[in-house]
């Protein structure tokens, strides 16, 4: 227990040593809080729904509308706040869905390294890896009716192989370690060896990858929205807002700019946080 507590203290210390990671942590916390409490925090919550106000259309940033309004008079700041919800669901949801699957595939293939199981599973994985993730996601998403759920499924479909590959490379190496051999010698069950001996020793790089990739998943989700394959109107989605606003450049620059900056902000936040997680889980001796 004491060792565990020491380990946590050590990790927190490592994380806190990285100042930009702290900034990232607060940025992510801010996004989450804004997303959860958007109906309370947004200055014009109606703007996130089926709402039109042509008398306020295309207003530049002002005190009344910090980010301006779009071409049908909706407050852009309010819509950005609500759009954080979809972006977070995309980032966290996809990672939460694909990691268990990808890790399982990689673990089994790694444990059965050199057998036909390894060959079949990893060649299938390789086929997925060779296809550009964004293109694959676009292709899959275009099959169904555009929605957040379908775009999440599409991204998940394209992303899991990277976790399978990472876990496979770790597991196929760990399986030859002495403690694994020892467990096998004493007749431990395969499930015990895979989940209790091999898996814990693969987790650090997996967690690091997860933390670093949430931002990228959000970006791919925004790209799907940009081309009309994500959330549909009137639901606010950052990619859709950038795409819609792009039609009115350069005169109504604010319609695209602020949602685009919001995407940058989220990706930066998760990347900074990811860097902190990476240093926290590193084996650097302090």
């Amino acid at each position: 227990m004491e060792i565990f507590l020491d380990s946590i203290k050590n990790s927190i210390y490592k994380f806190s040593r990285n100042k930009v990671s702290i900034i990232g942590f607060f940025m992510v916390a801010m996004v989450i809080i804004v997303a959860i409490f958007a109906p309370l925090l947004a200055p014009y919550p109606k703007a996130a729904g089926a709402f039109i106000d042509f008398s306020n259309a295309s207003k530049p940033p002002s005190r009344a509308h910090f980010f301006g309004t779009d071409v049908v008079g909706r407050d852009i700041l309010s819509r950005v706040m609500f759009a954080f919800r979809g972006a977070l669901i995309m980032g966290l949801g996809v990672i939460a869905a694909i990691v268990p699957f990808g890790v399982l595939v990689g673990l089994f293939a790694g444990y059965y390294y050199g057998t036909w199981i390894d060959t079949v599973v990893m060649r299938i994985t390789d086929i997925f890896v060779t296809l550009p993730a964004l293109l694959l996601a676009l292709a899959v998403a275009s099959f169904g009716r555009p929605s957040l759920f379908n775009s999440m499924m599409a991204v998940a479909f394209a992303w899991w192989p990277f976790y399978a590959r990472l876990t496979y490379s770790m597991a196929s190496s760990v399986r030859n370690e002495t403690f694994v051999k020892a467990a096998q010698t004493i007749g431990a069950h395969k499930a015990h060896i895979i989940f209790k001996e091999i898996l814990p020793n693969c987790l650090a790089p997996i967690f690091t990858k997860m933390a670093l990739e949430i931002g990228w998943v959000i970006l791919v989700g925004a790209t799907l929205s940009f081309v009309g394959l994500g959330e549909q109107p009137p639901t606010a989605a950052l990619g859709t807002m950038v795409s819609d606003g792009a039609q009115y450049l350069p005169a109504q620059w604010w319609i695209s700019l602020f949602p685009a900056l919001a995407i940058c902000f989220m990706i930066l936040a998760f990347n900074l946080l990811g860097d902190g997680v990476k240093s926290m889980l590193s084996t650097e001796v302090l």
Partner: protein
Amino acid sequence: MYTKRLGRVGVVLVVFLISALLLTFWSSSTSTSKTGAYTAQPTDYTIHTTEDWPTYIDPAVGNDFSDSIALLNLYDSLVFPTVQGTVKPSLAVKWGLSKNGLVYTFTLRHGVKFHNGDELTGEDVAFSMERLLTIKQGFAYLFSPYVKNAKATGKYTVVITLKKSFGPFISALPRLYILNKRTVMAHIVKPGTYGAFGDYATKWLLTHDAGSGPYTVQKYNVISDLLAAKFAKYWGGWSPNAPNFFEESASSQPASEYAAFATRDLDITDELLPLETYQSMAKLTGATVVTFLNGHNLNIMLHTKKPPTDDVHFRKALAYVFDYNAVISSIYPGSVQSKGPVPATLLGFDPNLFHYHTNLQKAKAELAQSKYANKLDQYPVTLSWCAEAPAEEKVALLFQANAAEIGIKVQITKKPFGSMEADATNIKTTPNASIVFVAPDYPEAGAMLSVRYSSASAGSWEQCEWLQNSAIDKMINDALATADQAARLKKYYAIQAKIVDLCPTIWVMDQAEKRAYQSAYVDWPVGDAIKAGKTAVGSSVMGYNLYAHDMKVYPQKRAELLSGS
């Protein structure tokens, strides 16, 4: 030894260069003398416009906005529509009608040349009509129910015999574009769909023309643009400053069109841009934005065979809840609310027709009578709008917000026009609501009524309602078969009343078309007339406001504008 070899190489090089020069000279001189196709000069100017895409330049295939613009510039027809809604002689200098109203005899203009130099004769006119009727695409639907056959009775005479009387036949004739029979026959590929005529040269005519119009295809990129060169031997003659080339390209993002317009690479924009873009363009030096009623209307077509819009009360609820004023004041300023299916500028429009207006109470009352009133959550309304017309998104969002006021959910999808066309071909894939601009194919109410509501046009982009109502079909056929104009107009009135009662469409507005053009160096008859305050009406016939032959360009003025002098 080395000097000798060098000498031989030099001789070969000189011979090669002389041969190349001779070949170049020969090819350029023959292309001009044989066909009359214009040869590019350094001072040439290409008038550049944009429109929705794809564009089909085969007269037996094309029938939408961009097709119409291309066809009218590449081909001639027997008559030409006027801004006043009538027609004037074109290839036909005169015509007569038999006493029974079924046989039209046309006398053709002498000396009209096709782009390859052949003379246009009655044989070509008869061939063009037969080809259109056989292929059954494009504007064939205007003639198929009525035309029995077309025969050349002399070199300059052609007789078209009808199966039954068709009152607006002459008004519809601008849509019969005349092809060179010899050219078409030379490019037929066998075997094909059309028996002895193989593929009827449809493959070749996808990228080439066989016309006699003022311009001839120079280069055609199916994906994005058409470049046509002036036909020097055009029978209609040329004014000194007429554009030497005419380019029609696919509409792009408003920001891209703005950039092209600002750098003077685009001379006349399409009519599909959002208001904000036109406002930005109007601020540019030497640019003018014109607005004119063009006989087109904007429709929200409601699928009458798909739940929940298969219920007439549900449709009426949507018609009553829609905010028409918001559209004409904030999205398409200058337009007017439509009164039924026929634009007010067309002959046969009924000014006393009942029309739906925004009334929340009536909307609720109609919805209460609908069989879906208590199941609204189970029946969302699917709606598509055209990606090439960005302003339509505002209409879609307005419709969604208005419908939400009475608890109706609307699922909006942005689709390229090509996808909307494809969806419209199948009763299952057509959405509940489609936002579509429609223009008449000839300047009379019958054009709109038949193309929009007869069963024959169901499954086309012009009728996403799938009305398929036999009573309406009968009434339309009867009206179109009525030769007496006054009687025909009365019948049009009755059809309009019947259709309005069925409410298959939300008739949003009669469009005030907006286009920005480079008035500093382009003379565009429609734009110049409006700019001078002479008239606020363009041609009611789809595409005919972009007739490049009547335009003039002044490249020197453009250069001055670009240099800032």
